[in-house]
């Protein structure tokens, strides 16, 4: 069908735009709603914490004797396996949180509450970025509660490390949240979300440096080593690991930044009614 010519009977009235305060109020409202939902879903908070703690208490205890960790950057000395996997477990919290946020977006779309967000007059990209930050804020709270408990399990970086790790945690959270948002635009039904678990979360987590140093992986499988290097989750974990020890991993920073831009750009396009996948999928 060809584009229909439309007569412009009336000149467009004045465009006023929105003041900065409207953007701030809107973003605050989205973060506030996400926080309320999180508070109401206590089991979500508990399970988000139990998962990495089980890995720390049980898996790491078992592997401590099996898997030796030699001195590798950013560590200055031999470390316990628990210390090694702590940044990976932080990544796990952020990964699951990102996917949980995308799951809730699929749920919101199915129940219709997503429409409330999408008919807001503020730009669609701004709404999605606000939603992303809201999810990350929830993830950051979970990470620091995890740090608090892990302190008693001999995971004790220097106190300034907790501060220097914050930007890395936020950036990693943004990347993983943006990936989840992009996936939520591709998943048509809630039931299909199990596939995301199998094909995204588990491969991303296991094919990374979260559980074992990459030199160890390289020794056993050069192919897996390559896959781990291409996995953005590896770089998110390394960014956090270095930042926790007050160092900057420049390569990891660039890769995580680049992936965040790509994933978020994809999500914004997918949710754009002019170009997106959402409306096409209903067709």
């Amino acid at each position, binding site marked *: 069908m060809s584009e229909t010519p439309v007569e412009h009977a*009336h000149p467009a009235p004045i465009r006023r*735009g929105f003041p900065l305060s409207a953007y701030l*109020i809107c973003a605050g409202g989205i973060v506030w*709603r996400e926080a309320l939902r999180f508070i109401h879903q206590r089991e979500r908070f508990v399970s988000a914490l139990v998962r990495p703690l089980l890995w720390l208490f049980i898996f790491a205890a078992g592997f401590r004797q099996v898997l030796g960790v030699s001195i590798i950057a950013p560590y200055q000395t031999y470390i316990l396996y628990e210390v090694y996997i702590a940044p990976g477990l932080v990544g796990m919290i952020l990964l699951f949180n990102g996917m949980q946020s995308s799951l809730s977006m699929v749920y919101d779309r199915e129940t219709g509450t997503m*429409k409330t967000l999408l*008919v807001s007059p503020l730009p669609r990209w701004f709404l999605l970025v606000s939603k992303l930050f809201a999810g990350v804020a929830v993830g950051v709270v979970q990470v620091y509660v995890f740090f608090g408990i892990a302190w008693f399990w001999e995971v004790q970086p220097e106190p300034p490390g907790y501060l220097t790790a914050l930007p890395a945690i936020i950036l990693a959270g943004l990347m993983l949240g943006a990936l989840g948002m992009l996936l939520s635009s591709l998943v048509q039904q809630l039931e299909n979300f199990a596939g995301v678990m199998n094909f995204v979360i588990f491969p991303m987590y296991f094919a990374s440096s979260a559980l074992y140093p990459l030199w160890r992986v390289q020794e056993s499988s050069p192919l897996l080593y390559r896959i781990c290097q291409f996995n953005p989750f590896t770089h998110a974990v390394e960014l956090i690991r270095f930042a926790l020890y007050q160092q900057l991993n420049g390569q990891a920073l660039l890769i995580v930044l680049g992936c965040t831009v790509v994933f978020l750009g994809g999500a914004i396009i997918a949710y754009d*009614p002019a170009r997106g996948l959402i409306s096409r999928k209903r067709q």
Partner: protein
Amino acid sequence: MQDGRLNDSATIDLPALAVERVSHSYGQRQALGDVSFTVPQGSFTALLGPNGAGKSTLFSLITRLFNVRHGAIRILGYDLNADPGEALRRLGVVFQARTLDLDLSIAQNLTYHAALHGLPASAAKKRIGEILATSELSARLKEKARNLSGGQLRSIEIVRAFMHRPRLILLDEPTVGLDIRSRAAILSEVRRLVKEEGVSVLWATHLIDEIDDSDQVVVLHQGQVLAEGFVPEIVAREGAKSIGDAFTRLTGVRAGTTEPAELRA
């Protein structure tokens, strides 16, 4: 705009909604074909059509959930594609499916909606007080939405649509699934708010008894506008006895049902 009021004096002569030659297809199936009509400011316009007529598709286009690819839609003169923000800030919507967050309280749902339109919590609180001044729901603001009945949920969604002082309200079959008493209450509540707030309404329905003689009607059937005008005009034009009769003559479907008239003859 801290309370949502907009100085729209320049738009006083423009229709609240202008749908101009809009078409939309789902793959090969055309849902809307060259649809044009207007909703004058301050009017209660019923979009009358049986199920599957294209009402929900049209609403998805007006709310910009779908992109307008063919034709144009203007709200108070603001083109939805060129000025989506200006158009949407003047629009309030009640979707056919429930869109309240059942885990949040009524007040939280309304405050969240206000925030999405850039209204601070203090303005939202004041506005809730204004709209619900005479409603029994004002005493239940702290209750979770899931504790409300279907009719009460719908009432809150209507209040929500009015929160940011829109100039045009869309309601997509808002009485579906409600009992007769709740339906009547919702309809009279909307008519009261329209009168008090001076907004325009586009009310999608397939039920003829929701239409008043003073309403403007747009008859939509199989994606085409078959008639547009005030009730007496359409009735006279079709040589019918009532708007229900005119609807049946136009569409071949008995008013208030989706059953073709000829099947019952």
